[in-house]
């Protein structure tokens, strides 16, 4: 994520360089996919049930978003994403949830269902 977009004004969209934006989005997507898999596995192994699982997803999502914000963008998200903070906290929420449910179900089944 070394590449960042030129310009700093969040409202002038044409100041962003498209390849950089795409690269940033891709990096974030990769981090998201890994987060969904890992946190889903963790929730499954811990045996979280019912809405605890979703709460765990929400907590890990917020934690991950905060990490991205702090470590990757150094609290300057508008340099990397067109939408700024909103992009970091909302993009890929549903897709990540699907992966999370898959891994949660899978690990939960393996650990707690089959004796």
């Amino acid at each position, binding site marked *: 994520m070394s590449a960042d977009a030129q310009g700093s004004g969040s409202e002038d969209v044409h100041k962003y360089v498209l390849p950089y934006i795409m690269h940033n989005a891709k990096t974030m*997507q990769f981090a998201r996919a*890994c987060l969904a898999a890992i946190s889903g596995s963790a929730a499954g192994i811990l*045996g979280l049930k019912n809405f605890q699982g979703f709460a765990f997803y929400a907590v890990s999502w917020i934690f991950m978003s905060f990490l991205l914000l702090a470590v990757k963008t150094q609290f300057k998200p508008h340099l990397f994403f067109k939408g700024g903070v909103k992009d970091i906290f909302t993009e890929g929420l549903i897709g990540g949830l699907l*992966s999370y449910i*898959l891994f949660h*179900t*899978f690990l939960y*089944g393996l650990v707690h269902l*089959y004796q």
Partner: protein
Amino acid sequence: MILDPAIRDWVLLPIMVVMLLVGIIRHHISVLITGAPKKPQLKAVRESKALLRGSQLRSFRNAIPPHAFESRKAYLTQAFEQGKYLKNPNAPKEGAPTPNPMTDPDMMEGMMEGMKKQVSNMVPQMLIMGWINFFFQGFVVIKLPFPLTLRFKSMLQSGVDTRDMDVTWVSSLSWYFLNLFAAGAGMNDMAAMGGVAGMAGMAPPGQPQDFNKIFLAEKENLLITSHDWELNSIEEKVLKKYGKSLKSTSSSDKIERSIEDSPDKKEKTVKDKIRAAQKAKSKRS
């Protein structure tokens, strides 16, 4: 209800592993099929770049001095009107029927690309679904760790006809669908990250565009754009940016006027120079 560990070993895991591997194979096959991107025609590139030039002039209009903007505007509107940058300027212009996409080799190529992608998406999914239906029909493989309403019963227990079983139990076919959705959402990205990043810059095959019409519309847009050079009253803007506004309005007015006067004069001289140079050039040629 307790599930036999054999079901885990011979149904649950195989389905998941097969889905994952097929996803990876599909990605690599699509990379192979796509091959090297076709070299675009010079004229086609010029056509689209001319359009881009117009829109860029519009979006960065305030970053160049007025005379530069005016000359670019005049040139581009003229070029757009005459169809200077059209791929085939001799084609019938108004009222011509849209050309048949089958005749244009470019369009044919684009359609083939789209077809290939769709086929490579569809065929493996059909095969896997047939495979699961054939071997694993009626297996209950896993239980969701969260409750659901009865409405999901038909979705999660397709292939198992039991009325009284809890909704959260998942049949083999539904396990496949769960995998499919999750894979579509995020897993393929993970597989793709390891591979070549060759997916960027693929334009979807669209309808053949009438560039003459687009050019004319762009000309209209150019004609109505107004120009306000950013360097006008730049001193005041800089002062404002750093929180030091001018003290009295009357003095600021005066300063502004003097500022506006001086660059105008300078610009005129620059403009004259350019004009003189152009004249000299035309005389020489």
